């Protein structure tokens, strides 16, 4: 018998790997020193741990440890990268490029820069969630200072062509920032090869603790940032604030484990994800959102047409998943990511994101498939849209009376 609820929301966050937690604990108690203390062994021990962890984070993405700046998480990394670069290079121009399907941490940061007088181009995506490279190239202007594109989308798991976009940016002299919160430990990242100038990372998406992240800031060619957090001049002045040693140690260990295990782990997770996909694909009117090839192994985002996402989540409460339907908000707007793919409202409201991870098991997937079959059937029996569809009515021709 599987233990419920079953966690299938690994893109929201992950449990801290027990090996990571174990490594963190001594840094809360005995090894509590401030890494900035230069005058005694407490500080030295903490500093050594911080630098080792910096090395582990750098190693996963083939960067120089000196290029890693600790932050509180990917949201802060995105803020620091985009605002920091925009402010520093505003003499060169005030135009930025990003994408409509980016995380709010990027979109809202861009909105803020717009309020400060910057101009931002929000690129659309193709139906499969991927960016059209020609469109990307065409969006670059003489006054463009930075482009920001996420490596892996948090909702639909699609992998953007970062190598190609990096080449385009470098050839045009535009800084390239990549939000890799959902990518680290899931896709190979080689910053020795990628023409990426700034890259954001998070620990809690890959079995590390919450509250810690990092920003990669390229040294050759050197990228400059205006600090957003002022204080003691930590992290070479780019991000002041006492370093949380235990969190950093946890992030380092999580990245080390990812480097050692990601290839075997990815294959196992892909097998489970494919099993889940196959298991639900015999249900009528099931649509996968986003490209199935250029996609991380652990993500399956599907719309169960004619069933509203939030009620489905209620029906499958043994599964911890998330929905692209935002019926809880006053606006009742469905996921902006799915809307950007051109999904109609019904499909966007009917979407469920399943994300699998390190501790997902085959039994859990079997249980999930069985439960979905049962509950989709029940909810469709209750759905007037399903009834109309079965009667052969084209829902697009119906004049809806909205409230």
């Amino acid at each position, binding site marked *: 018998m599987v233990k419920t609820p079953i966690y299938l929301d690994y893109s929201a966050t992950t449990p801290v790997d027990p090996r990571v937690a174990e490594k963190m604990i001594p840094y809360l108690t005995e090894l509590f020193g401030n890494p900035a203390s230069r005058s005694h062994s407490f500080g030295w021990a903490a500093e050594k741990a911080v630098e080792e962890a910096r090395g582990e984070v750098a190693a996963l993405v083939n960067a120089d440890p000196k290029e890693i700046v600790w932050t509180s998480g990917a949201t802060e990394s995105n803020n620091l990268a985009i605002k920091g670069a925009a402010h520093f290079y505003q003499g060169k121009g005030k135009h930025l490029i990003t994408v409509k399907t980016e995380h709010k941490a990027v979109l809202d940061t861009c909105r803020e820069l717009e309020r400060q007088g910057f101009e931002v181009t929000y690129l659309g995506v193709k139906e499969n969630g991927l960016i059209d490279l020609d469109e990307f190239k065409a969006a670059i202007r003489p006054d463009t200072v930075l482009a920001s594109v996420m490596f892996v989308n948090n909702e639909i798991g699609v992998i953007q062509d970062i190598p190609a976009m990096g080449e385009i940016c470098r050839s045009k002299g535009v800084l390239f920032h990549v939000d890799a919160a959902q990518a680290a430990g899931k896709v190979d990242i080689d910053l020795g090869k990628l023409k990426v100038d700034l890259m954001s990372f998070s620990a809690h998406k890959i079995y590390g603790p919450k509250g810690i992240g990092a920003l990669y800031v390229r040294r050759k060619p050197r990228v400059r940032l205006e600090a957003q957090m002022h204080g003691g001049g930590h992290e070479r002045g780019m991000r002041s604030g006492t370093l949380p040693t235990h969190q950093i140690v946890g992030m380092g260990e999580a990245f080390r484990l990812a480097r050692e295990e990601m290839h075997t782990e990815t294959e196992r997770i892909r097998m489970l994800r494919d099993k889940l996909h196959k298991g639900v694909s015999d249900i009528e009117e099931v649509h996968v959102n986003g490209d199935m090839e250029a996609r991380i192994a652990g993500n399956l985002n599907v719309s169960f047409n004619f069933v509203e996402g939030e009620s489905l989540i209620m029906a499958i409460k043994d599964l911890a998943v998330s929905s692209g339907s935002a019926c809880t908000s006053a606006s009742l707007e469905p996921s902006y990511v799915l809307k950007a793919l051109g999904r109609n409202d019904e499909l966007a409201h009917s979407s469920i994101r399943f994300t699998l991870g390190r501790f997902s098991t085959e039994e859990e997937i079997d249980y999930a498939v069985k439960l979905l079959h049962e509950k989709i059937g029940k909810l469709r029996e*209750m759905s007037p849209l399903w009834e109309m569809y079965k009667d052969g009515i084209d829902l697009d021709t119906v004049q*809806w009376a909205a409230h």
Partner: protein
Amino acid sequence: MSYSEKVLDHYENPRNVGSFEKDASGVGTGMVGAPACGDVMKLQIKVNEQGIIEDAKFKTYGCGSAIASSSLVTEWVKGKSLDEAMHLKNTQIAEELALPPVKIHCSILAEDAIKAAVADYKQKHGLGGEEYTACNPPKEH
């Protein structure tokens, strides 16, 4: 989103799910909401010769609160006259189900569904009911 026990009860054991023959003379059908908004309710009433609603059925596409609101009103309208049914208020539904503010629209939709069903019945029988439209169709969303 945490739901009240009453919402959960109606959601897990919905009352009166189903459909009546739309064209039957004693049946009034109300369909409100829009897929764009994430909820569509179809409420049907079966009215006897004395003008009393003797049965009701619903189908709802929407969140748990929308399903619970429609399930609840099918219970409430049974045994009521058309005029009494018209006087059911969304606030009573919201109160009974302890709906949080973000879900009040579900109760409004359920009230609209009753009114639309009664209007449909009256129109069929030349009782002077005008076609009831809850609101304008959605424009750009």
